[in-house]
């Protein structure tokens, strides 16, 4: 994080306590940058270049964050907790829309997509992951949160531990069992 957590927290507090627009204006570019940085890091890693739409995704996250006016941000960790939840909603929405589009047809586009998809490895079904995660949350909220933060929020083990106020060791344990559960759910589906 570029600006230290303290400043961000202060700005968050100022905004959510008083509804001060100026504080929000100052804050948003920083939030946006951070979300952006996460997205960029992985997508660059994953695939050179084609990053256009990611920006739009993060943009959407940003817009939704502003919409969360009633949330009282306690601190930086809290904020990124919320951000991960946003990313989850956005990404799953995206996957749903895309699925609907495929079903709807547009033969040319479909062919094109398939041709391109064939080169990439086995694809992960985000919608099923989302459903499995909801199921997991019914049994163990913390495990589900760990997945949400790590998988959707892009946080690493230590960051996740900070957000949840638990030890990194616990994060690792929760992560393993949650992954095994989700993977099994996906294969059963």
């Amino acid at each position, binding site marked *: 994080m570029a600006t230290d957590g*303290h400043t961000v927290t202060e700005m968050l507090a100022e905004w959510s306590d008083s509804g001060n627009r100026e504080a929000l204006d100052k804050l948003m570019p920083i939030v946006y940058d951070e979300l952006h940085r996460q997205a960029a890091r992985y997508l660059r890693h994953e*695939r050179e270049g*084609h*990053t256009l739409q990611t*920006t*739009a995704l993060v943009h959407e996250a940003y817009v939704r964050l502003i919409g969360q006016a009633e949330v009282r941000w306690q601190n930086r960790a809290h904020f990124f907790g919320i951000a991960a939840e946003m990313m989850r909603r956005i990404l799953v929405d*995206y996957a749903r829309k895309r699925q609907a589009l495929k079903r709807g047809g547009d033969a040319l586009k479909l062919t094109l997509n398939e041709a*391109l998809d064939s080169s990439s490895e086995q694809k992960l079904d985000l919608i099923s992951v989302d459903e499995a995660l909801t199921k997991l949350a019914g049994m163990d909220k913390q495990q589900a949160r760990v997945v949400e933060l790590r998988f959707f929020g*892009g946080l690493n083990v230590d960051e996740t531990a900070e957000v949840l106020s638990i030890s990194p060791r616990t994060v690792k344990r929760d992560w393993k069992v949650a992954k095994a559960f989700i*993977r099994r759910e996906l294969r059963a589906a």
Partner: protein
Amino acid sequence: MKTQQTWQRITELFEQALERPREERAEFLLAACNGGPELLREVQSLLAEHDAEENFLESPAIAAVANDVLADTEGPRIGEQFGRYRIEALIGRGGMGDVFLGSRNDGQFEQHVAIKLLKHGFVGDKTRLRFLQERQILARLEHPAIARLIDGGVTEDGAPFFVMERVQGEPITTYCKHERLGIEQRLRLFLKVCDAVEYAHHNLIVHRDLKPSNILVDDKGHAKLLDFGIAKVLSQENRAATKDATRTMMRAMTPEYAAPEQIRGDPVTTATDVYALGVLLYELLTGEKPYRITRDAPLELERAILEQDPSRPSTRTGSSAEHFGTNSRELRKRLRGDLDRIVLKALEKRPERRYSTPEALANDIRRHLDGLPISARGDTVVYRAGKFVHRHRIGAAAAAFIFLSLVGGLIATTWQARRAQMEARKAEATKNFLKSIFAASDPTQAQGKELTAKQLLDDGARRIETELKDQPDVQSEVARVIATTYQQLGEYDRARTLLMADLERRRKIDGPRSVQVAELLTELGDASYGQGKYDEAAPMYEEALSIQREQLGERSPEVARQLWNIAGVKRNRGDYSTAEQMQNQSLAIFVERRGEDSREANDVRNSLALTYADTERYAEALALQTAVASWYERNYGADHPETINARYNQASSLLALGRAAEAEQMFADIVARFTRVLGARHYKRGRALRMWARSLDELGRSHDALPLINESVRILRDHFGPAHLEAAIGLSWQAIIEAHAPMRSEAERDSRGAFDVLDGLKNVAPRHAAIVKTNCGIVFAAIGKLDYAERNLTEAVALLRSEHLEGASLNRAQSALDEVARRRVQDKE
């Protein structure tokens, strides 16, 4: 669904089992589950999933949709509207992005451009801002050998794009091969490339990605450089990234021409371009690339660039002599010695050992061509590296960082440009000081505060006085670097304060009547003149002139330049006779010292023509303008913006002299060229359209003129805003043409509109106000509003007389007034 308790139990057993060696797990579970077959099955299946794939979910969700994103955004863009351009065809694909042929159709004119869509871009709001600043800097580059940047922006989905002049030609290396150019011809062509790069460096822009495919030669043999500054935009996109990302990007960017510092991710400076020029020269002279590598692997090439010393060009002439129209023995002989040394010096691994500027490289080649000894022979002065600016790599994106790197880049290049003139000791001290300014941008020192670029520079400027007070020479250098950077950021007042302080210092050290003081005074004068502050500029120029007369002699080029400067001030203040006199003196000296056809003489002729035009001496203006325009055309080509400007001036005088048919032809051509070169919405095209419309109107073709004047008013209003003098003048001419059409109600509406705009403006020059009032008066007269007409025309006449403008404009106003008087008499009868 299992209960929370059951799941908790399952989780515990799963974790305990994982802590045990694999072969003991089954036994452990059997005991632990103790007859609960469902529990056992549950834990075992989870363990199986766990063992099957460790990597599951390890890359984040966003990576999982990356491919879909790719599929959704990929695909043909042909026919798509891209900003204001329509994509016609894909003309190239590269590591940095795709290049499209674009066209823009504004009714009657079609402009073809090249559109480069960058694919590495992530664009947030701040980056967007910086990108726009960058674009402005790039758009300033106007050089015959540099493809112009016409426009640029960010697409809806966040990718930066550049719209550039379309250049048709082949890469310089291919061109030389096809044309079988000999060594001398190749060197001459290469010198043109050096000049263009040098010009860009003076404008604080480093190319960073020079290579044959970015240097095209057209069928007339003119070289043009593409993609200036784009690599910099790219690398700043990756600002938050690590060295890894830099390396990845380098791969996208043709490593053959990359300098060692680029491979290492070290700061890029003007010396980086010198290196790339070295690689290019190597290839032009030998037909080979400098490094011999056994496999076509990027890593091996990178290692070669970092470690391998390239062989001398004269040892690499084996296969390609026929492309030079000679044999390899001759070729070897030609390259051995000077050219070997020049090339190898440009290819030095350490930037400070290379030629410090493209000009230095070019000078050595010129010397070689002239048979003079070259500087690369023997000892080289070792300059310390200019690695001070980009040193401070900040891990994440500090809010200020973007601005810092922009300012850093400006400072770095400014300093590079000055460095060549400094002695090593002074250079070192200056570097250290500049470096210390940027140390403050290190987050650990900034203490959580975000420093803006301005604060940083302010801080540096303050410290000049205290920390450097024992080193006046260094003080001056730092002050000038920071002042130049301020000017780049539009902080003219701060620049001025700094230069004024330095002036005082130089007066004490070098003496009040020294040449150095005169130079500094000229710089200060230029800064004020550029801002339109003529009253501030004048005394600076005057003092500099008197020093230069005393120290350098009456007939020195410096004196000529100063006379020209002062004449500019005089003309802008309306003192035309003094301006004319000084311009004539200046011209005489330049012709004597620099030659009849020199740039300096041409510049002065241009100014003198403006003085004549301002005083309505159009015949004298026309003679000079014709000469100036053909000078530009000879030196820059017919499509260069300066050439077109000069033609515009020439045609304006023709129209003023009543030679409307000639003017009409010229303006039609000028409008077409501006459309092609500057774009259809450019204000200069707007003005040219107005002149074209006026010429047609003058020829009695009011109906042809109407659409043109309408478009002109639209363009100028968009550019300057509706409450600007340009809008008033445009509307008043539109009204005149409408009155001739005849379209009385439109004419009345527009002349009133023009009048209203003029009424709301302050500080309008009398001659401009007179144009609007004359036009309105003529229109009112035509539609029978004689009272209005008389009032406006009387005011116009008074204004012109007060300015002693007693030429064509006065005649026009006066005769319209006479006409009104005649009509009154008729009405009475």
